[in-house]
């Protein structure tokens, strides 16, 4: 990193030694996994820069915003409406973590058999290595899966300002009114935090900002439908991962620039590799930075990932929010409509997700689907079995993976993924 951020990290209360170790590992992993790829779009240089400054410049920007009186809100889920946060003059950042950290300390607070995503979240807090979390003026939890909702009870003792939002579990009229009521409660909490009332203008502006960001990602996704795929799954995943860290307008520009470049590639039938590669759709649990384990194995084994049916991917970014409402209430309704469509596995039943997987497999011309489940993530692991069955009935090969953030199973995983790719060739 170009600037010395150590005083900034120290002010945030980070454990500098542990943090150095984390950045060291992250830097090496990024080098091996991303920079070693061939035929990368030039526009990915932006994301290389973002990643090299992920705990540096971006944190400095957030702290500058704070100094100017803006509030920072952290969240762990795509059900937290960024529109409301922006409209209340605050900035939303994702806090989900994708690496094991301070596991011993975590297992004093959480059972060992907790999913890696939740454990990692705690590890980054207890290990004092997440500058995003330490910058946040409010942390939003949401009652999605049992693991998360119970973990928030414990997290409440570790962070100053935890706001927990309740979540419906069924796509019923009652479920929707619960979500809407919770979004109103969240709006009030934000207004209390920032002292800024959400207005028709600020909310419409916020919806348009977030929609533009989503539209850029939709454009990127559409380009990945081309055969050969013009961008690696790893690079596209990275863009999806940065979706919730970066300044929205700058992110939108960066993604659109990559798309301009990819359009030329698609026109010239140029892909990430000369040879035709089996095309894979990844479906299931979110993959937070720096969890690049599965896509790295898949793409190193000679396939290309063309889509992510995931919170960090299309489940999180699908559908725009209608900005045409003429009152705050109308726009609140539109926001509820948009988020209520998210097909998270906490909903029962959840037929939309299966329909989306089948739709995506066809649209992205996937030769096979890898269902990515985090160990102990009951909702997605439960759905994995009917998903596999339904896909196989349609003659779409499916590989069910159940893994975590460790590298303990990398050898086995590699053999299974390679054998699956052989099956598709």
């Amino acid at each position, binding site marked *: 990193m170009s600037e010395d951020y150590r005083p900034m990290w120290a002010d945030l209360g980070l454990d500098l030694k542990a943090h150095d170790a984390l950045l060291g590992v992250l830097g090496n992993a990024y080098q091996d996994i991303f920079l070693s790829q061939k035929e990368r779009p030039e526009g990915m240089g932006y994301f290389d820069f973002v990643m090299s400054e992920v705990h540096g410049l971006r944190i400095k920007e957030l702290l500058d915003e704070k100094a100017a009186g803006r509030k920072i809100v952290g969240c762990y889920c795509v059900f937290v409406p960024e529109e409301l946060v922006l409209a209340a003059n605050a900035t939303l950042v994702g806090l989900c973590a994708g690496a094991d950290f301070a596991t011993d300390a975590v297992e004093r607070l959480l059972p060992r058999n907790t999913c890696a995503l939740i454990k990692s979240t705690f590890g980054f807090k207890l290990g004092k290595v997440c500058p995003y979390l330490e910058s946040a003026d409010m942390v939003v939890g949401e009652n999605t899966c049992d693991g998360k909702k119970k973990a928030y009870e414990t997290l409440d003792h570790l962070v100053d300002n935890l706001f927990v939002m309740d979540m419906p579990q069924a796509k019923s009229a009652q479920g929707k009114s619960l979500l809407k009521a919770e979004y109103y409660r969240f709006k009030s909490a934000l207004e209390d935090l920032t002292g800024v009332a959400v207005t028709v203008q600020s909310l419409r502006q916020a919806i348009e900002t977030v929609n533009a960001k989503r539209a850029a990602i939709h454009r990127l996704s559409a380009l990945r439908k081309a055969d050969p795929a013009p961008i690696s799954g790893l690079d596209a995943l990275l863009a999806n991962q940065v979706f919730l860290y970066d300044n929205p307008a700058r992110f939108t520009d960066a993604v659109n620039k990559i798309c301009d470049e990819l359009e030329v590639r698609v026109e010239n039938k140029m892909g990430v590799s000369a040879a035709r590669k089996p095309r894979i759709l990844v479906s299931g649990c979110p993959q937070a930075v720096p969890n690049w384990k599965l896509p790295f194995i898949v793409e190193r084994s000679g396939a290309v990932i063309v889509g992510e049916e995931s919170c960090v991917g299309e489940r999180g970014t699908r559908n725009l929010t209608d900005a045409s409402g003429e009152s705050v209430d109308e726009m609140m309704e539109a926001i509820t409509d948009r988020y209520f469509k998210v097909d998270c596995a906490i909903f029962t039943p959840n037929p939309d997700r299966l329909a989306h997987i089948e739709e995506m497999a066809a649209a992205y011309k996937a030769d096979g689907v890898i269902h990515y489940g985090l160990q102990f993530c009951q909702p997605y692991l439960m759905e994995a079995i009917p998903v596999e069955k339904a896909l196989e009935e349609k003659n779409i090969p499916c590989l069910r993976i*159940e893994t975590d953030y460790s590298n303990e199973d990398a*050898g*086995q995983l590699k*053999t*299974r993924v*390679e*054998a699956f790719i*052989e*099956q598709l060739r």
Partner: protein
Amino acid sequence: MRFAGIDIGSRTIELVVVDPTGEILLSLQADTGFDPIAEAGKLLAGVAYDRIMATGYGRSLFEISFDAPTVTEIKAHARGARAFFPDAHTVLDIGGQDSKAIALLENGRVRKFEMNDRCAAGTGKFLEIMAATLGFGIEAFGPEALRARKGLSISSMCTVFAESEVTSLIARGGNRGEIARGVHSSVIRRAAGMINRISSQGDIVFTGGVAKNPCMCHLLAEKLGRTVLLPDDPQLVGALGAALLAAEASALQD
């Protein structure tokens, strides 16, 4: 042209050389030891071949050292099993450190597979440790277990926990042969579960080192009520499959 296949497993390395018709010209075996690539090099010394393909858990190391193409054990066993049994649709491979159930399409391609994850449960290594705990040589373990009239139940699949379960059965005066049979049954329960997830009927080709154990074959057939077919040398199936795939790849290039 002579085509070689080398299967670098966790316990043993097999080398098979075939002619263009798939006839086996040579087969060799060695222990993997702690340096698989050095062992593979020794095994290959003086063996004449034109093309080679590697499989097994050491395949990636071999690919780097010998600049050779590789194939997973799953595809290699599927191909090798078809060489012995052209109608095979289901293959069970239990090797030293992992086990796989493989379902094949009509044309011999892999339709679906299941594989144990992470630990040594239900593999050759598990049986080896249990045999040692019970004081049997690995060769005698299967026949002794087969002779027992019943099996004492072993519930744990974790190698470490199962070992202590076996130790406590011995302490309680359990018959060694019956405990041995119980150990075999516990591995078969797991293997049968994997097979049932991918295929519901038809003969099963049993490959890998564990297929040489007669009690395993007997219990597998009994548990599933399906015929178990054994190749002449089940341990060679992976290497043979790799050799045949090398030959087919070469034919495609020409």
